[in-house]
């Protein structure tokens, strides 16, 4: 079973040389720490930056330079700044190759819910609805089951949707799964030491698994 960093590390393997990538808040942010050496990747922050760098050294924080999670950051050589309309313009026109974000629930048709729990304080969707509606390539980083032990990979979402039929790949603490165009989760890889049966039990939606599902490999 993977921890958050393990999930981030596995997702990082999906990043190809030359990709522009948008990382959501939470586990997706950790992915930046595991981008393979020698790979040129540009991180977009949807408030209006391409070429996001690491956190600043202490004392070098700049209040005018933050990411979409409102964290102080730095820029890398070759970065560019733009307004929020152009930022979502490039998201809608699919110039961003890969979007990685968290989810509360994903359905076996690729619907995603990650912004609202009825009856609880609603903070807002931020840029999530724009991202899931536009991105050509989305990976969800999430826990396979919630704290109550219930599956978050469902036949259909119970929470208000963020987007419909948009998720194609999911990485959890247990597995890597593809969402099949005709519906259903296809088990691609198991976390080290986790059995197909265990994953099947943790998956409420339809799960398809070949006889021989490989364990995840890390770099």
């Amino acid at each position: 079973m993977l921890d958050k960093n393990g999930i981030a590390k596995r997702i990082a393997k999906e990043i190809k040389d030359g990709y522009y990538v948008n990382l959501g808040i939470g586990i997706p942010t950790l992915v930046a720490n595991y981008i393979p050496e020698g790979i040129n990747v540009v991180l977009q922050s949807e408030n209006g930056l391409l070429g996001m760098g690491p956190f600043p050294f202490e004392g070098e924080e700049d209040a005018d330079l933050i990411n979409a999670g409102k964290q102080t950051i730095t820029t890398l050589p070759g970065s560019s700044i733009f307004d929020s309309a152009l930022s979502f313009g490039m998201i809608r026109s699919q110039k961003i190759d890969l979007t990685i974000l968290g989810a509360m629930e994903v359905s076996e048709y690729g619907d995603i819910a990650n912004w609202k729990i009825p009856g609880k304080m609603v903070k807002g969707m931020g840029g999530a609805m724009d991202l899931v509606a536009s991105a050509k390539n989305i990976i969800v980083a999430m826990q396979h089951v919630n704290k109550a032990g219930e599956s978050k990979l469902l036949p259909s979402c119970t929470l208000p949707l963020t987007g419909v039929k948009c998720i194609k790949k999911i990485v959890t603490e247990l597995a890597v799964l593809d969402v099949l165009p005709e519906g259903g989760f296809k088990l691609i890889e198991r976390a080290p030491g986790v059995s197909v049966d265990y994953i099947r039990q943790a998956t409420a939606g339809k799960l398809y698994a070949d006889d021989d599902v490989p364990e995840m490999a890390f770099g």
Partner: protein
Amino acid sequence: MINKVVSGPEEAISDIENGQTLMLGGFGLCGIPENCINALVKKGVSGLTCISNNAGVDDFGIGLMLQQRQVKKMISSYVGENAEFERQLLSGELEVELIPQGTLATRCMAAGYGMPAIFTPAGVGTEVAEGKEVRNFNGKDYLMEYAFEADFALVKAWKGDTAGNLIFRSTSRNFNPVMAMAGKVTIAEVEELVEAGSLDPDHIHTPGVFVHRIFQGKGYEKRIEQRTVRTRN
């Protein structure tokens, strides 16, 4: 050139009235019109509809206006980080319309570009789409979203000139340029106000034609919401 300079935030916002609709630039606490917000709090104008990506924190930014119960309605994409906001929302004192961040930015831009409506796929199939026209282009569904109308847009720039031209610094640009284009009256506060002719015309982010009033702000706090750092090895 046409001189747009006013004496300060009090004069700039003096004709903002109860019940009007304001756009406020900024993302989180970054690039917010601090001086104008403070002047609005002092003036005590109320019943406002505020279009702003966020609602500040309890004791800074739009949060200060919330504490004074000056805001009737917020139109935002994300409103966390604010206990007073939450209290007013749950008690029904405050109305909130949450819309996707890109939709918010593009509806501002649409106003500035004289486009009455735009199409975006954001929110199709979700509760955001309720009551909205859905239209299919090339096999993909889009929502039709209307341009915003705002009585005033309040924006914060780094440098500005007496002709109203604005230059923003780093990611404090965010929503400021699109809101600057969208106000019936646009008020710009800047950290440094210079004479017309001091700025390179190629560097200007917001042409002065969109700005009606400009002043050099004072005492910028520029608070950091999430201070994240790394340590030197």
